[in-house]
């Protein structure tokens, strides 16, 4: 007990409280003195153009990653659930990307999309699309989204497959006897029954897109070109570690904490409800 409490206090609460305190102060350029500034850091951050851009990028990025990774995973899990005997084999073939570091996933897809020798950029060139993610912001965003989907899909696949296999076969058989085809069965029985799993995964995918993808973005686009792939966490890193703007980055930390806190709260309410009704 005591060791974990100590670790948590020193490496969690101390930093969190420092962030809270720093977010209320303004440091001078040499880090020698600081003055109390109230909410000035927050208003400065919230009013800045670059924060709005990062917020927008994060929204686009998380929604695309969550929908893409969950959609593909649900499709593959539904198929794997059909072919029961072989589903374990497919599971092995599909879960390993989870073990690949987000940073490494970024490098793999950066190679596929390399403007001069990437397989996919050549295929695109053959279709008449000029591909250079180093110059085109939309293409850079597409690159990191694809790399993140590739990595996160396996996580969703595990949960969807477990959810699907938990659906009683008798329900589906009854529907089949009543004349419901596979398509109809999926939308009227399977889909509603796995909606708790989907909701849980939506929150987890959002958290993944917010935080874990830092490595993906840093190894491939470094937030560029021109800030096109700069997400909230990437901006926090650039302002705080590279730019040494302590007050501003602390305010961003606190804002991010609030966002995650909100997500966790939503998640909890849902967990509680599930415990009560199932």
């Amino acid at each position, binding site marked *: *007990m005591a060791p974990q409490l100590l670790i948590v206090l020193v*490496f969690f609460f101390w930093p969190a409280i420092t962030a809270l305190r720093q977010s209320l102060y303004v440091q001078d350029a040499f880090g020698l003195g600081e003055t109390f500034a109230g909410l000035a850091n927050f208003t400065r951050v919230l009013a800045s153009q670059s924060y709005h851009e990062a917020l927008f990028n994060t929204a686009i990025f998380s929604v695309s990653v969550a929908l893409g990774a969950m959609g593909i995973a649900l499709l593959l899990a539904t*198929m794997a659930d059909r072919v029961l005997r072989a589903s374990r084999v497919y599971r092995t073939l599909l879960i390993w990307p989870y073990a690949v570091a987000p940073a490494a996933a970024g490098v793999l897809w950066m190679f596929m999309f390399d403007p001069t020798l990437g397989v996919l950029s050549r295929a695109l060139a053959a279709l008449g699309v000029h591909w250079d993610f180093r110059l085109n912001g939309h293409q850079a965003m597409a690159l990191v989204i694809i790399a993140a989907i590739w990595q996160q899909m396996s996580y969703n696949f595990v*949960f969807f497959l477990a959810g699907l296999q938990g659906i009683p076969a008798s329900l589906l*058989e009854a529907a089949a006897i009543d004349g419901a085809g596979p398509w109809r069965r999926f939308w009227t029985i399977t889909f509603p029954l796995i909606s708790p799993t989907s909701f849980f995964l939506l929150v987890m995918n959002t958290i993944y897109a917010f935080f874990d993808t830092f490595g993906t973005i840093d190894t491939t686009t470094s937030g560029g070109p021109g800030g096109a792939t700069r997400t909230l966490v990437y901006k926090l*890193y650039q302002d705080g570690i590279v730019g040494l703007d302590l007050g501003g980055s602390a305010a961003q930390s606190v804002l991010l*904490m609030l966002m995650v806190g909100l997500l966790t709260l939503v998640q909890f309410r849902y967990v509680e409800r599930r415990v009560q009704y199932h």
Partner: protein
Amino acid sequence: MRYHRPNLDVLAHTILIIGALIFMLPVVLAVLASTQTPGALFSGTLPLWFGGSGLEHYLTLLSEPVRGVGVPAWQLMLNSLLMALGIAIGKLVFAILAAYALVFFRFPFRRCCFWLIFVTLMLPIEVRIVPTYGVVADLGLLDSYPGLVLPLIASATATFLFRQFFMTLPPELMEAARVDGAGPWRFFIDILLPLSRTNIAALFVIMFIYGWNQYLWPLVAMSSADHATVVMSLKRLTISMDGTPPWHLATAMTVLALLPPVVVIVLMQRWFIKGLVDTEK
């Protein structure tokens, strides 16, 4: 019978096989590219089979200092291994002890302790990266193994899982042990630990992968090459002045970085699935 449709099964297999191939494609291409000579790779034709360099790039990376990093890749891999093991074992030890205290002992502020640990679930290290750096710097732990590992141990997932598990054990178990004269320590070693074996294995796999794949924290806190990890060093090979990175080395390095955790996940799949599904419940 309507329920069983063979041609749908064929469709399912087709989609799954295509899916599995697409997911494998980036790694296969990286492995192939890593065996090409730079000349063949940059000549412009698509290399679709193993190239002439064989394992040469891997041996170069492992034995000579990596460009932009300063130490050979074997040392980076060793650091990654130490970090992953440190995080996995550290988290397990702290978590199991904390859960033991929370479930089996009554002490003042027990609920308060529980909530203190509990809120850490919410915040990944990326959010508190700047102040954490400050704290670790104040403690003089930058560029050291404790500095690399300790801040990443501060999390509650594992504590939770063990707490849940301990609470499912019947109280009679502890009473029986007490009647037989076993003290709290004895009960922990001889009864709780053996019962938790599967949970420990499952969590170990998850935490090992989590630890190995850490990127931002080592990048920020480990500025000297002696403590650099393989994942955080990937970027040194993908940035370049003239636009095109040295892909023959970058792909080889990526393969080195992803191989150990992928091997772990494939070999220990059963534990991994259990760990993944359990930690999120």
